């Protein structure tokens, strides 16, 4: 079996997060693999629909939750549209896990601030669960999550679950005009909400994922709040094909996002050409 050949996985559940975002739960056909499969928070995979091709997403479930993996995607391209058509019981392909990961182990004893916009919560969700499953190892956990509208908030059940915990501070926000009558969260863009939330930067790390504009605007705010570039983690989403550091597509300057990333610190990002 060569490195490009996918594993087969059964779709065992699907959840519509929003009108255009769906989460699939996959279980490997190979039982041994189902038990042995391991990954780190932040790693990604190549998901395939046979006949349509492969697409790259992070593994959205937490490594601490065994036996299955999950991915969340928006149907925008050829493969994601095909993935949107699969049903529970169908077979898809998976290669991975690939890439580096969030150094969660290094965060022990620190506060962790999660900031996500839109579907950017998918890679962050994985880390959130990873951290919450080992809650006692970390200091304060703060989550700031925003989407265009209430309807666009993904992982709604989990947002509620996190909100109900006393050991998590969560702020959800929607863009002005995206609120509903019974919306109790904030109204405003992610960046000012982060500023207003003002998480403590001392002995803390920030995980920031979202559309490029959110990342771009929030980085200076984190800087202002006192977060060092080395303490800010994000992921790059360059187009990939192989995920293995061969096909050359995700290369930016000296890094191949698939091998050297997808997780980068803000400090690393500043060293890269702005080709992402």
């Amino acid at each position, binding site marked *: 079996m060569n490195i490009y050949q996918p594993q087969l996985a059964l779709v065992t559940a699907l959840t519509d997060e929003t009108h255009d975002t769906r989460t699939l739960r996959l279980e490997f056909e190979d039982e041994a693999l189902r038990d042995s499969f391991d990954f780190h928070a932040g790693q990604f995979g190549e998901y395939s629909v046979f006949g349509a091709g492969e697409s790259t997403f992070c593994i959205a479930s937490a490594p601490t939750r065994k036996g299955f993996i999950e991915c969340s995607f928006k149907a925008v391209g050829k493969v994601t549209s095909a993935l949107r058509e699969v049903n529970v019981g169908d077979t898809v392909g998976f290669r991975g896990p690939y890439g580096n990961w969030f150094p969660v182990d290094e965060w022990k004893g620190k506060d962790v601030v999660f900031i996500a916009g839109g579907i950017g919560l998918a890679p962050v969700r994985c880390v959130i669960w990873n951290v919450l499953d080992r809650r006692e190892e970390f200091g304060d956990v703060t989550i700031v999550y925003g989407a265009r509208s209430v309807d666009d908030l993904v992982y709604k059940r989990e947002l509620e679950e996190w909100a109900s915990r006393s050991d998590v501070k969560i702020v959800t926000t929607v863009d002005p005009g995206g609120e509903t009558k019974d919306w109790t969260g904030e109204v405003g863009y992610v960046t000012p909400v982060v500023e207003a939330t003002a998480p403590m930067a001392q002995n803390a790390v920030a995980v920031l994922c979202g559309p490029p504009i959110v990342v771009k605007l929030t980085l200076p705010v984190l800087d202002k709040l006192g977060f060092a570039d080395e303490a800010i983690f994000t992921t790059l989403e360059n187009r990939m094909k192989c995920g293995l550091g061969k096909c050359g597509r995700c290369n930016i300057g000296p890094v191949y996002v698939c091998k050297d990333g997808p997780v980068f610190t803000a400090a690393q990002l500043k060293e890269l*050409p702005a080709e992402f």
Partner: protein
Amino acid sequence: MTDATRETYFISDDDLRALAGDLLSAGTEVIAPVAVDVCASPSAIASSACLRPGVAPVDIEYRALADAAELDLSRGLPVLSLKQYFLPGHEALCCWRQHGTEVEIEAVPTTFAPRVVLAAKSCDSAALAIVDKVMNWDYQDELWNGRREATTIVNLACPVVDESCFCTAVGTAPDDVKGADALLTPVEGGYLMEATTDKGRVLMEAHGARFKAETDTHGAKHRGRQAAEERAAARARVAANLEIDAESVREWIDAHFEDPLLAALGVRCNGCGACSSVCPTCHCFDIVDEEEGIGKGTRRRCWDTCQAPTFTLHASGHNPRDDQHSRYRQRINHKFAIYPLKFGEVLCTGCGRCTRACHAGQDLVEILQAIDIAARRPDAAAAAVAGAEPAGS
């Protein structure tokens, strides 16, 4: 390669062809330069429709020989490099069959029948050794490796093709054996052949009758001198085309991403992938699924190029490299800075194919020259830059 006397053997022109014939009759695939009538076809059209009488346009191509007589030893440069035999233009990665919700995957074999490449160019064999690095970066590409292992490559010392050759500037040479297993050097009446790897020695031993050991005779000494002169002359010829300091070039590119010399290179570039297609080291690829009817198909990889806008285009419409300047810079950057940084080698063997293939006049020799001058003699850079970027800008 340095100790040319010990393992050097003489093989006559006829015996070299006979060697190809021996391999073919033993069922071994032999890939070698073949002079191809550019409009050759199985029909009679070639002579009447496609060719202008008296002018016989001939291309040299690496082909699997059907007959030893096809072997072309004129030492011209094949249109496409050897890359196609290791990373084919398209190849299957796996096949699938779908029955309802069930999918069955059929693996593609990764072991290959032994084959021999005769009369390869050093710029082509060296490219394989360079690309080996990325193909084995943590994950082993078995399809590439399988073909590499199954292939014995015999280089033929190159006389240097034209003014666009610059192999010595990027660390190889017309008579290099990098990536190859043996080297042929033309001498009076035939070739001197030396094996440089075990694979090469096995090949020569298996066909020992075709070779004569170069003992300490007058003739052997003469041939040895002849070969050395031939090789030295070729090196000198190519060195005259371009001389750069690859390390300075790498450092300069790394530090001058936004420099006009690098950032404005794309103006005359058409953004076609001809340079990548003909390049022996360009290895970027795409992966696509192709259905054959309903419920079965093949996942293939095929050549791709960083020069195409679609290479980096996101499904959202966002394109991190959305103009030709940035795409052309990526080509230079990847070859002369990124790859050396990651894998310790320049991703270029100086074959010059990209320059010859570009009829819009993108000239890598000129660009490297300009970068080298900028890197080593910043004061003189301005003058050299003039040719490489739009005049006056």
